């Protein structure tokens, strides 16, 4: 039994004391009733997640949960309640509260004149929220941003936020506040997704047409989340239009996609299905086949496709059922067939990776104040690579086939369930509690070797480590409480346990967020969060690849842990939301390959060593400040973000045990995102990013030596000695993307033509650096980029 928690700091008890005081006579209330229900889109019937409900008379409000369900406690008698949601006309309703009342509210999309300004507090402004370090970006806004190859990418849009960094050029991986990619909990409809990359990471798996809402939390995590150190990325799929059939699609230079949604039973059940596929292989293969010799057939393949589907069903007034799935496949390889006389040869080599997620969720209203959600889920990620060679000799008497194949596979499979409760006893407390149980099965890499030489010699075996099983469980409780006028807190506890092999790890993680609204309207916020992570991604620091291995903590590999402190200020100025945050995060149990080890050494060494021998564990720190100025609606919208940060790591077995900068330690990171609607027809989008160059290790020194060559003779060699880890920097990264969208309304919908230019001023941003020679013959370090100026066009339609 390993306990990974530390004693709770005494000062964490202070808000708890205040919490008890919050229910004292100071806040004693008159007779009240509960108003509850769903807030939904009037046109489609889809739930509006996070819609705000505001009662002016008591200056109290609430936000709808992830399922659009709200609960507010109101005094007896006639009460005026305001319902609002970003981009929708606010609705003011008079409700006669003589008993607990259930009321589903429909809001109409679009702002009507005279409704644009509503009273303070009517919408949940940034200073009203207790939660800090959380950013929502409207999906409609993301769709108007310039996109490489015309393919809108949600994760690349998140990279434009302060505190969120991209990896290499073009990569859709995200590095949040100095964390690694595996430290992001990516939830698709509440289910963890283990790989989010298509096309070796250049595109993410999220199809913008299928997504309703996306948000990222970088710190101050509420207790309901756990299991990762650096961020929570919540992606919610569309539910589907409940009233009529609608569709959308696009044809871009990379892929085509189509989305269809509509009612299964009007106003009661709906569906959404969205698919996407690339077609480079379909275009190129006929040309390659045509140019191949007659006795040879070459079939290269590269494609990715994904499918999102969701069905939701309203079962009476109190129950709703949601079934959602995601399936994604990338396949890359080549198959060659040659035949000469009696002999034919077939070689197939390649790699593929696939993701699948299945979630069944059941919402139930137990009463006016108690709401629950049960999630049953399955998540799976598989990676396969290898080659398969076969030779067939056919003659008059018989056919002889020999085969040699080496097929490597790795992956992770999760099965689990989760129960969450929302309980609102009064307007000063919003309590959430629940638990989760997940069983993980890890395939840490196994190679199937097939050697079939004759009927007598048939060899088929699997080399590699056996599957690993672990069980992860957690319970949590949190209360979003108004401690005093203008002072809100979210106080919670998250307790988790991992059972793996013969080891048990347990961890108690306190979470605290405070928000104090000053008379000037400025909100001062602070948060404290401890996190523990039981799964690790064994990856190359410089590049996230599908070969990366998901592995559990084991008896030898302790869990990752972090403690994050953050303070900040937030204010709304007109239509602008401003936030400034500073954070400090320390991390322990970070996993890295030892010097010289890699995917190959972990996967293919069969000399008695395992992946655990190829890795080492260490610690890290990250601190910095982030500024965000965001405008979410209007003719001109977008944001400006700036991050100043430092991130360092230390491993006893790397860099002689000395601290070194993390690869993505980026001192300055700037992003400017602007969307302007020129007219009903034209919309312009532009993004500009600047970032300090990536840290890298270069070979610095050379010397001569000798080594035995292939026949044992000693031959001269020149050895190169690397610098201290990550002691050099690539050139700063900067890039401008622009787009223009022309939209035309037609009889049954809309057509849009999107012209985009990636890297408009053609700055070749460095992807890697290699030693080379100048034109004068002197040695130099030369940087290579991969994406120059790339124009693209896409055609979109909606009906």
């Amino acid at each position, binding site marked *: 039994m390993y306990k990974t928690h530390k004693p709770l700091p005494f000062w964490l008890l202070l808000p708890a004391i205040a919490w008890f005081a919050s229910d004292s006579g100071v806040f004693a209330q008159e007779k009240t009733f509960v108003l509850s229900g769903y807030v939904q889109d009037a046109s489609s019937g889809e739930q509006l997640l996070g819609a705000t409900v505001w009662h002016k008379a008591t200056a109290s409000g609430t936000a709808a949960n992830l399922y659009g369900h709200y609960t507010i406690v109101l005094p007896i008698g006639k009460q005026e309640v305001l319902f609002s949601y970003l981009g929708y006309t606010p609705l003011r309703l008079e409700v006669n509260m003589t008993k607990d009342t259930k009321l589903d509210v429909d809001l109409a999309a679009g702002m009507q004149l005279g409704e644009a300004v509503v009273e303070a507090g009517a919408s949940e402004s940034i200073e009203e929220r207790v939660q800090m370090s959380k950013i929502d970006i409207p999906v409609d806004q993301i769709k108007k941003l310039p996109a490489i190859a015309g393919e809108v990418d949600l994760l690349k849009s998140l990279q434009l936020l302060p505190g969120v960094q991209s990896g290499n050029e073009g990569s859709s991986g995200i590095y949040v506040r100095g964390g690694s990619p595996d430290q992001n909990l990516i939830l698709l409809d509440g289910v963890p997704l283990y790989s989010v990359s298509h096309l070796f990471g250049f595109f993410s798996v999220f199809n913008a047409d299928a997504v309703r809402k996306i948000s990222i939390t970088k710190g101050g995590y509420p207790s309901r989340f756990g299991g990762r150190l650096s961020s929570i990325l919540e992606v919610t799929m569309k539910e589907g239009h409940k009233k009529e059939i609608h569709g959308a699609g696009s044809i871009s230079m990379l892929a085509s996609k189509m989305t269809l949604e509509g009612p299964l039973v009007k106003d009661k059940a709906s569906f959404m299905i969205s698919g996407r596929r690339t077609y480079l292989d379909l275009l190129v293969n006929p040309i390659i086949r045509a140019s191949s010799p007659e006795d040879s057939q070459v079939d290269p393949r590269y494609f990715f496709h994904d499918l999102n589907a969701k069905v939701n069903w309203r079962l009476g007034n109190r129950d709703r059922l949601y079934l959602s799935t995601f399936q994604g496949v990338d396949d890359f390889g080549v198959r060659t067939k040659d035949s000469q006389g009696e002999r034919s040869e077939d070689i197939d080599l390649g790699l593929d990776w696939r993701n699948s997620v299945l979630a069944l969720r059941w919402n139930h209203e137990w009463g006016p104040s108690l709401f629950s959600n049960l999630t049953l889920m399955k998540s799976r990620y598989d990676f396969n690579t290898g080659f398969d060679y076969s030779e067939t000799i056919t003659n008059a008497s018989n056919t002889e086939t*020999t085969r*040699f194949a080496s097929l490597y596979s790795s992956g992770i499979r999760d099965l689990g369930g989760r129960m969450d409760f929302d309980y609102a006893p009064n307007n000063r407390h919003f309590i959430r509690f629940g638990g989760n149980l997940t069983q993980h099965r890890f395939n840490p890499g196994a190679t199937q070797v097939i050697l079939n*030489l*004759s009927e007598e*010699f048939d060899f088929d075996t699997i080399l590699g480590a056996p599957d690993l099983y672990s069980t992860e469980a957690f319970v949590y409780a949190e209360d979003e409480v108004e401690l005093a006028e203008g002072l809100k807190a979210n106080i919670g506890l998250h307790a988790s346990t991992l059972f793996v092999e013969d080891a048990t790890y347990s961890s108690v993680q306190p979470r605290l967020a405070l928000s104090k609204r000053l008379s000037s309207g400025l909100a001062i916020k602070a948060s404290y969060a401890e996190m523990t992570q039981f799964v690790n991604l064994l990856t190359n620091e410089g590049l996230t690849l599908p070969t990366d291995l998901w592995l559990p903590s084991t008896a030898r590999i302790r869990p990752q842990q972090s403690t994050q402190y953050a303070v900040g200020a937030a204010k709304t100025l007109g239509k602008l939301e401003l936030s400034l945050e500073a954070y400090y995060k320390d991390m322990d149990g970070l996993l890295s390959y030892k010097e010289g080890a890699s995917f190959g050494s972990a996967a293919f060494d069969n000399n008695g060593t395992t992946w655990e021998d190829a890795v080492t564990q260490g610690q890290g720190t990250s601190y910095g400040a982030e500024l965000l100025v965001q405008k979410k609606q209007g003719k001109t919208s977008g944001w400006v973000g700036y991050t100043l940060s430092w991130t360092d790591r230390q491993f006893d077995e790397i860099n002689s045990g000395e601290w070194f900068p993390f690869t993505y330690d980026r001192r300055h990171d700037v992003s400017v995102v602007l969307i302007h609607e020129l007219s009903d027809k034209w919309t312009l989008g532009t993004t500009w990013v600047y970032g300090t160059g990536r840290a890298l290790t*270069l*070979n*610095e*020194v*050379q*010397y*001569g*030596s*000798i*080594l*035995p060559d292939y026949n044992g003779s*000693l*031959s*001269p060699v*020149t*050895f*190169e*000695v690397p610098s201290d880890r990550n002691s*050099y*920097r*690539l*050139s700063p990264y900067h890039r401008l993307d622009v787009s223009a969208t022309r939209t035309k309304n037609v009889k049954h919908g809309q057509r849009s033509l999107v012209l985009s230019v990636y890297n408009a*001023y*053609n700055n*070749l941003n*460095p992807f890697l*650096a*290699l*030693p*080379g020679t*100048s034109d004068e013959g*002197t*040695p*130099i*370090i*030369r*940087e*290579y*980029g*991969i994406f*120059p*100026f790339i*124009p693209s066009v896409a055609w979109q339609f909606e009906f």
Partner: protein
Amino acid sequence: MAIRILNRPCLLGAFILLVGCEKWSDGVVNEIEFPDHEATTAASCILTTGDSKAILSVTNTASLLSVAPVDLPQGVSATLQHEGVMVLSWTAEDVALVGEGLDVQKMLVLNLDSPLNLPEGEIELTVTIPGEPLLTARAIQPGMPEVSYTLHLGADTIASLWGSEILDEVGLD
């Protein structure tokens, strides 16, 4: 001329694309400054009992961006002692080129009169370069494992991808 090009978006686009392609293939030179390197000496020697030659590589170290190649320092000499007893001695006269073609390097090479015998024990390599501090390296020569075996030539024949192969068999006694 420049203004005319700028007035035509297609031409401007094509120009940017051309410049982009050139950058893409050639890369971009980043003037990374390496710290000044203070050269030291690196010596390497691989010896096996039974060798007829004793080759010792001695070079200075140099920055990777240095134009001058690494080379054998002038006037270098060296000795190898086994348990305090001199076994080998290289002098500045023993310089020879090792390697083939363009891949050659000056090293100290001793042609031995009889096969080298290095029994178990501590060996010490000392390299002397005029004007430089003495360079010393020590290593433990492990004992020679004693194994007796029986060799059966042509003990088996198998069919493989490359045709029929004859296998010898070594049996450890």
